[in-house]
């Protein structure tokens, strides 16, 4: 990157519209559009908004590389009313869908991520794969408990009966030391031996009924 491009990117870094670029660099509209298009080809710019929506250009000095989907992308995709701001860039290069995202979210032990997994149960297509991955990570109890919580509030796809028949003795936590406080979750706690950390108010956030 030459010094001139560097200085220009340094001045423009952040969110811009065509008008702000025109003002900052004292350019005509066409020159600003040409410049943005050139920077986009060099991977310094990504655009959001099209059609009637105003275009916003995100400009960075470093290149914005193409991404593969990760846990946050999957959770946000299926929770339109309950978005999560990623605190690190999670990407999976290979097969990745709701089945894998549920397991990853449970392992973070973060409240909002676990809450967001509830919506994903309606999109599970491969129950054997979910069961195998959960067994490998030793978290099938938690998956089963979250499935039963999801069933109380949403329409979800049916889990094959053979995966529900397992009996458990040892208690496993979704989040350490969080206990079941809502009476309606007690049967789920009893069945899966997993304390449910959610309150009723938490669930209304993801059902979209504020």
């Amino acid at each position: 990157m030459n010094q001139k491009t560097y200085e220009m990117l340094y001045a423009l870094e952040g969110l811009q519209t065509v008008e702000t670029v025109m003002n900052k660099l004292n350019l005509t509209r066409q020159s600003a559009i040409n410049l943005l298009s050139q920077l986009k080809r060099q991977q310094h710019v990504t655009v959001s908004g099209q059609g009637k929506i105003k275009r916003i250009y995100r400009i960075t000095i470093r290149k914005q590389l193409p991404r593969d989907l990760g846990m946050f992308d999957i959770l946000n995709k299926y929770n339109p009313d309950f978005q999560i701001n990623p605190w690190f860039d999670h990407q999976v290069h290979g097969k990745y869908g709701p089945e894998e995202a549920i397991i990853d979210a449970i392992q973070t032990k973060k409240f909002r991520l676990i809450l967001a997994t509830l919506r994903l149960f309606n999109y599970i297509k491969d129950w054997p794969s979910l069961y195998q991955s959960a067994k490998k990570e030793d978290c099938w109890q938690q998956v089963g408990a979250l499935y039963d919580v999801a069933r109380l509030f949403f329409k979800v796809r049916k889990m094959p009966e053979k995966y529900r028949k397992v009996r458990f003795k040892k208690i496993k936590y979704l989040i350490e030391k969080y206990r079941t406080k809502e009476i309606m979750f007690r049967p789920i706690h009893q069945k899966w031996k997993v304390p449910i950390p959610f309150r009723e108010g938490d669930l209304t956030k993801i059902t979209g009924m504020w």
Partner: protein
Amino acid sequence: MISQQGQLELFRLIGSSLNQDVTCYAFGGNAMMFYGYKGETKDVDLLFEDEENRREFIRVIKLLGYEESSPFKIYIEEKLREKHRPLMFKRQDDNGRFDLFVKKIFRTLLSPRMQEDVYAEHEFNEKNKLKVKVLRKEQLVILKSVTDRQNDFDDIKTIIKQDKHFDWQYLIDEVFWQHRHGDTWVLLDVEEMLKELKKYVLVPEKFVRQLYGMNRDKLRLAPKKKAKN
């Protein structure tokens, strides 16, 4: 040299031959490629949490034709006397080089902050999982000061120049932590790097003073050697 696309394909290939899940931390030029700071790198620097993970990784790269190479001429002699020096692997066709560390990078520990505050996590899901965690830019600068190879200083300059939001306090805090936990080199390495860096970019004076202050305290607290009679 290896490009970002080449690196992703290489990791995918390695992931497909693993017999167990492996987790590692990227911190060199390869980590900078994940950020988009640069397009290609000579070496892939990885840090493993334990020897078992590194052993499995080495088994797979040997299958891909990588052979152990000598670290001499790449790292300074003083650092190569350390127990935690890297194992290095290279292919005949010179398609990049692996520098593989375990637990420590010479004397610098894999700190709890390094493990928690990662910038990115790239998973290569094949039969088994290869998880590559990319360290924060502040950690990259510290570790590049420590490894101190040819081009490492240029990489530091690139990071600082391309990032408006570089957290100097985070860097200083981490240097102090490393120093408190037995890394006797880190203070001197970072101080030397900052002295050189000040010629090219603006380094806020208060952070430099913090580092000098720490260094002075260290010298004051150091036990004096008794003169021989």
